[in-house]
């Protein structure tokens, strides 16, 4: 990777990210896929960085999945999003921080639509008022949660207990960064680093000691794509997309994948299992897969949080090889123990993928 060229491009794509007082909008699916991630984001921001974050229980889906699957019309989506902004306004916040990349893309798309077509904004205000008697302000600042972690990546590094470095060899870990498509492919100027060379995750990896891998299919979709996945018969498209990525990255022998979208880590993780069962392929060393993490999980590891508190036991591709390389202190026996030592039960052993 020619860093000088990338840095020149990154300079053209900078964005303002609010300092503090965030209205936090959770993701629909992250809670189910990797529930530790959002909890870790709040833990880092509130406990480590001392920021004010409002985690609103009245928040609902942004309808992103239904909108992109052509089930919900844009007018309805706009009204639902307007309700979220109304909740933010009534809570006294101006900085909107969604956890989901699809939500971030959708909020951006809607705000841009309102900017270009003010009559649409007026119509949405009218629809929302008729439906809920609520009024709203457009956020002063809209940033994805990965933007916030990016902004404070150096503060996290100062508090770091571990680095993204192989403890035995002293070499930086080789990391594949994967940005969710809706982060900046639709509106390149809304993402740090633009659409071609987004820096949001690469910046975190750089700060925390890792080395980013540049590989041919770096900007290719992970394979989530709602219509590809929502219908079972179409899932062949999804897994083929992911396979194309794995085939492209595998020769570089990555230690892990870091992602900033709800769908990407899930599909990178689960499709590695499915590929191993369908074709007997594993992409990591010695029958292991390539662990796919969220940026909050990686930040949590760097800060020295217990991997099982981060929810890493919910990954189908085992995280232990990375933990061992980083020299992280963990108790293997606690992997399948939940809060108050409740037994979570062990998943069924995979045929090919290594199980710990």
């Amino acid at each position, binding site marked *: 990777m020619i860093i000088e060229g990338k840095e020149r491009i990154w300079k053209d794509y900078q964005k303002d990210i609010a300092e503090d007082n965030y209205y936090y909008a959770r993701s629909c699916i992250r809670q189910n896929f990797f529930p530790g991630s959002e909890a870790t984001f709040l833990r880092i921001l509130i406990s480590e960085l001392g920021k004010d974050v409002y985690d609103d229980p009245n928040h609902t889906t942004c309808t992103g999945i239904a909108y992109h699957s052509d089930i919900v019309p844009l007018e309805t989506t706009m009204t639902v999003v307007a309700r979220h902004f109304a909740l933010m306004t009534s809570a006294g916040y101006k900085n909107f921080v969604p956890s989901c990349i699809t939500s971030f893309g959708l909020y951006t798309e809607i705000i841009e639509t309102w900017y270009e077509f003010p009559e649409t904004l007026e119509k949405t205000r009218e629809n929302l008022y008729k439906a809920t008697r609520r009024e709203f302000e457009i956020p002063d600042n809209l940033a994805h949660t990965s933007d916030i972690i990016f902004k404070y990546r150096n503060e996290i590094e100062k508090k770091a207990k571990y680095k993204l470095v192989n403890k035995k060899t002293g070499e930086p870990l080789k990391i594949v960064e994967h940005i969710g498509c809706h982060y900046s492919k639709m509106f390149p100027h809304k993402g740090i680093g633009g659409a071609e060379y987004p820096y949001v995750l690469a910046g975190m990896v750089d700060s925390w000691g890792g080395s980013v891998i540049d590989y041919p299919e770096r900007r290719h979709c992970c394979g989530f794509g709602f219509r590809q996945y929502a219908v*079972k*018969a*179409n*899932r*062949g*498209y999804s*897994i*083929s997309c992911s*396979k*194309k990525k794995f*085939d492209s990255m595998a020769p570089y022998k990555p230690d892990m994948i870091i992602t900033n979208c709800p769908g990407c880590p899930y599909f990178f993780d689960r499709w590695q299992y*499915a*590929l191993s*069962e*369908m*074709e*007997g392929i594993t992409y990591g060393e010695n029958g292991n897969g390539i662990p796919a993490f969220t940026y909050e999980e990686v930040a949590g590891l760097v800060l020295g949080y217990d991997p099982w508190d981060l929810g890493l036991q919910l990954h189908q591709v085992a995280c232990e090889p990375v933990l061992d390389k980083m020299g992280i202190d963990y108790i293997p026996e606690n992997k399948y123990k939940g809060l108050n030592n409740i037994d979570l039960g062990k998943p069924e052993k995979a*045929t090919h993928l290594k199980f710990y």
Partner: protein
Amino acid sequence: MKNFGYTIQNDRQIDYDKNDTKLYDFVAESEKSIRTCIFCGTCSATCTASKFTDLSLRRIILYLKRGLNESLKKEIESCMLCGKCNLACPRGVNTRNVILNIKRGIEHYEL
């Protein structure tokens, strides 16, 4: 191997650094005009045989460039060598000679 109810499609990406160009090179050596083909499809549009068979010279030249020699072998058999495509080509490619040389190349390499 497990069946989850869906299949993996093989990647159809053509890597131009790795594809098999021996047949294309063989043709281009004796009929240099093939290099000026822009794949406009005029040849296929004017082809009499294409109305009754799967023959498309545009596709054959594309297969040739991509090194998909197996795919073009059967298709080229439908050509009657009438030469109408030769008259219509806006780039002046001697398409008739291209087809003849493809056939020679297939024989030469025993494809």
